Every structure is written in C-alpha cells, then in structure tokens.
C-alpha cells in the first residue's frame, strides 16, 4: 500500500498558481525521465517566465539562460557532453518571441536536444501581456481590445515553421484531459528517445492553461483550450523518426 506516487525528481512542491498547466507537465517530464532511467543524466536549460520556478523544485541539473536563449545554452551543453539528456523547458514568449532565432536554429541544425515548449498563449510571469501565440481577438494587458492580427501578426505556429525542416521528432500535446495527458507523456518519451538514440532535434509543444492571466476559472480555461486553442494549434505527432507523419 505504501507505493510511492510522486517521482523523486519532484523534490519540493511546485510554486505555480493553482490550476496552472506547468505542474502537470513537470510531473509528466519527471515520470518519463525516471522511467527511462535518465534522471541522473538529465540537464535542463530554462530561462525566465514561470518555467524558472522549477529550478528549486525539479531535481535535475539546471542552467538558467538569458531570456530566449535556452536552446543555445542547451546546445553548448549537449555538444560537449553528448552522453547527457539535454532539454529546454520554456514558455511560448521565451522560445518564440525573443528566442525565436535560437529555437529555429537549434532545429535547423537538427541539434540532438529536446525542446519542451509550454504554450499558454500569454506572458505569464510578467503579468499577462500578449505573446506570439496569443489568439486573434484574445484580450491581454497589451492587447486590451483583443489581439488584432493585422497589426500584431498572426499567431506563431512553431510546428508549422519546423515541420519542413529535417528534424527528429515534432509533436503537439495538451493537458486539458486525462487522455491528452497520457498522450503527452508518450510524446515526451518519444522525444527523449529520439535524442538519446542520436535521432536529432525533438520538440514537444504543449497547450496549457494560465487561469491567473486568462482571468478564467480552471474549468473555463480547459474549456477554452478544447474549443478555441486547439483550432489554431491542432494536436498530434507531426514528425517521427525524421519522417512527416501528419500528412
């Protein structure tokens, strides 16, 4: 009866807001690393944003990169320590606004790292400003009338940007239902398997709620992902073993 349910990698309670998707994603990543016996070999690269709260609570080696640059830092580690399991854990603002170039070029060089990108459609930590992934019409503190895509650009779909490039693995998951969380775990596992077998760049984007800055209850947030967010960001695997699987 004394079966341990919480992964050892989660060394402290997380510090995210109640209902935040980051907590679930942390747990899934921790389970995968432990099940794959990689906990002792893992090095994470994160920058700022809510992800950086993991530094004390998630017990892998970490490097805190400057805002946006986590992929470049991860590349520096992986190139000198290829035996390590090197991953980035970033928000959408971090990886797709300021860090778009670092994210894209890690993919273009097919670097053997795993990128975990949490798409909550907003800048969470700085208080809910517009992100590259914010949906048209979505209100944020810097798009108070709702995002106008004519003047601010279309939402960034990083998977569409990368799927034409030769990379190892690409998938988009979500944490809105238990079923999706189980699928997400498979995606993260495949991404890390891809890296550890030298299969090239792997990226898992994850749709995740930010009830605090969406100013919604958790229930309404999950509903919003199901009904609205998935339309713009369809779920599934896009590239596997270096081959397109979505077509």
């Amino acid at each position, binding site marked *: 009866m004394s079966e341990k349910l919480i992964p050892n990698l989660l060394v402290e309670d997380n510090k995210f807001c109640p209902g935040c998707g980051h907590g679930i994603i942390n747990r899934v990543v921790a389970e995968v690393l432990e099940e794959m016996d990689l*906990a002792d070999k893992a090095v994470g*690269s994160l920058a700022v944003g809510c992800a950086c709260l993991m530094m004390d609570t998630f017990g892998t080696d970490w*490097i805190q990169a*400057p805002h946006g640059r986590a992929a*470049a830092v991860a590349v*520096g580690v992986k190139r*000198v320590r290829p035996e390590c399991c090197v991953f980035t854990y970033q928000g959408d603002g971090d990886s797709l606004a300021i860090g778009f170039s670092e994210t894209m*070029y890690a993919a273009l060089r097919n670097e053997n790292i795993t990128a975990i990108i949490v798409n909550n459609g907003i800048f969470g930590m700085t208080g809910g400003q517009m992100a590259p992934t914010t949906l048209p019409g979505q209100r944020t503190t810097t798009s108070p009338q709702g995002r106008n895509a004519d003047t601010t650009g279309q939402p960034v779909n990083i998977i569409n940007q990368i799927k034409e490039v030769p990379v190892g693995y690409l998938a988009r998951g979500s944490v809105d239902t238990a079923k999706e969380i189980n699928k997400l775990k498979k995606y993260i596992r495949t991404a890390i398997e891809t890296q550890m077998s030298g299969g090239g760049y792997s990226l898992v984007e994850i749709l995740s709620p930010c009830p605090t800055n969406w100013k919604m209850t958790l229930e309404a947030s999950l509903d919003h992902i199901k009904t609205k967010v998935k339309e713009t960001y369809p779920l599934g695997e896009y590239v596997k073993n270096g081959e397109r699987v979505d077509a």
Partner: protein
Amino acid sequence: MSRRLMKGNDALAEAAVRAGCRFFGGYPITPQSEILEYLSARLPEVGGTFLQAESELAGINMVYGAAAAGFRAMTSSSGPGFSLLQEGISYIASAELPAVIVDVQRYGSGLGDIFQAQSDYHMATTGGGHGDYHMLVYAPASAQESVDLMCLAFNKAEEYRNPCLILTDASIAQMMEPVELPEMKEVNPDKPWAVRGKSGQDFKKITSTMYYIDDFDTYIKEKYDAMAEKEQRWEALHIADADVVLVAYGISSRICKEAVATAREQGIRLGLLRPITVWPFPVDGFKEVNPDVKAYLTVELSSLPKLDIDVKLACKMKSPVENFLGGAVIPESQQIIEKAVSVLEKVEATSCLKN
C-alpha cells in the same frame, strides 16, 4: 615549445587550443574572423567542438552552456558583435563560470569600420552588460603576448570563476610575428560544480549565485576587490625620472615605446606606463612614477578619450592628463614626441604664470 610565424588572430586561436579550450561558438566579423576560421579546422583535431552560431547572442550562450558543463570555452567578436555578447557575459559572470572572450576592436560606433581602433575600452572595462560585475581584461601588444595572455586568461577565469576578456585590435590581430607556443594542456572538465546530470537532492543549479550566498553584496565586492588588488599587470619604461609619462596599451603602446627611445636620445625625458590589464587598471604602477612628473599623455586609437578617466584617477589628479587621439590612424612616434613636447611647454608656461 614551438616557434612559428603567425598572424595575431591565429596565434590567439592556437593558444586557446593549447590552453585546453575545447569549445568555441561564435559569429564572423572583421577583423576577428580568422579566429573562427582557424578553430573550425583546429578544434576537431583535438576532439573539441567548433560551432558557427547564428548570432553573437547564440554564440555566447553556447559558451555559457559549455562552460556550465565544465569545459574551457570561448567566443570572439569585434565592436558591433561585442555589444551583443554583453547580455550573455553578464549571465556568465553572475553564474560565476569561467569563459574567455576576445574582442578584436574596430573603429567607430554603430557599424563603424573595420580599421584598427581602441574604441571599446569603456564597454570592456566597466563590465559592459547589466548589473554588477567585471571581467579581467588583458590587452596584448604583440602576437607573443596574445598567446601568453590567452593561456593566463583561461587559468584566471577558472581561478576566479569569472569571464575574462582579451582586448586587442585589428593591427595586432592581423600582423604576422614570430611566436613561441606553449605545450598542449589537457583540462579535466569534471569540475565539482559542472552540470552533467545528477538528480534528486544532489542536483546542481547554474544561475546567479546571488540566490544562494548570504550577504551577497559583501561577497561579490570582496571578490572583485581581490581581483583589483592582485591582478594588476603593467610594463613600465623610464617612468622613475620621466617628465611626461605616456599611457597606452596594445598597438599604441608599441609606437610609444619607439617614441620614448627616440625622445631619450634627444634628451627629452619621456616614460611609458603600459597597462597589460586594463581592468583592473594598474594603479599600483603609478606609484613608481617620478613624483615630480609634469604631465601624463594618453595615446590611443579612438575619436574620444577613453583612458583619460582611469589615468586621472590613478594619478589622483596630481598632474595634468592630456590625450593623443589617433582615431583609426596609428600615429608616427615623432607625432607623439611632438605632442609630448607641446604638453611640456604648456605645463611649464602655466607653472610660470602661477609663480
């Protein structure tokens, strides 16, 4: 030891390899691109990694990652790229990691031009990036010194766990000179602090050390104070009896050396104080200067005075400080002598007035 004829940039690159550097991430810019070109061939020969980054921002952050993993790592750039490196350098300093950065200075602000210059002095010596930090900044005056200071920079970077900068310029970097190269050094990357995966309670965090050190303000001040006290390096030439002491580093100092020798033959008492570290500025060297020195003359390749303020502080404003500014043009030694003589005449004229 082996002796070779090498370009300054190549000498810097080979010295880095011999000092145990096994990772380079950087981006081309004149006049430092030979460093990339050289290392792209050389690092793989010794099992190291060369990566042409998509930008200086990525390059310095790759260095951050490799350094965090315990490896000796470096990048290099010039003016416009050096500006972009500042963000990453500040993070590396704040995480207290070793790394070596090279700035082969070029002329002007903005895009500027590719001529030799010494315009990045303030960005190099005041930290450059955001927040409270410094780098040990070494200013070689020859290809040989580039080699020697590169090796020293890697050792000091590890000793202090702090990024170190080689501040050079196009003329030293592009000139060919004979150099003695040191033996190849192998450095164990498995530092106790290096990230390489250890889960649970033993995990390591590479981030600003301020989060983990009690009374961080005192700690960090003591660290940089110790560097400022112990790491000053300079070369002095005839300063004990000089009427005018020239202060110059890098390429400018070589012309000044010739100026001192020629002036002395003519009975003009010039001296030279050459900072080898520009941070920390060698204030201790000024204690050996003739107490009756009439003036200091800084000589540098920039449009605006840069050394001026450090010299004024080092001599405690007891003597006038004048500037010879070459812009992008390396002066003739005779021009420096003439300027020194005019400075002397000016000082003597004003002291007559005071009498």
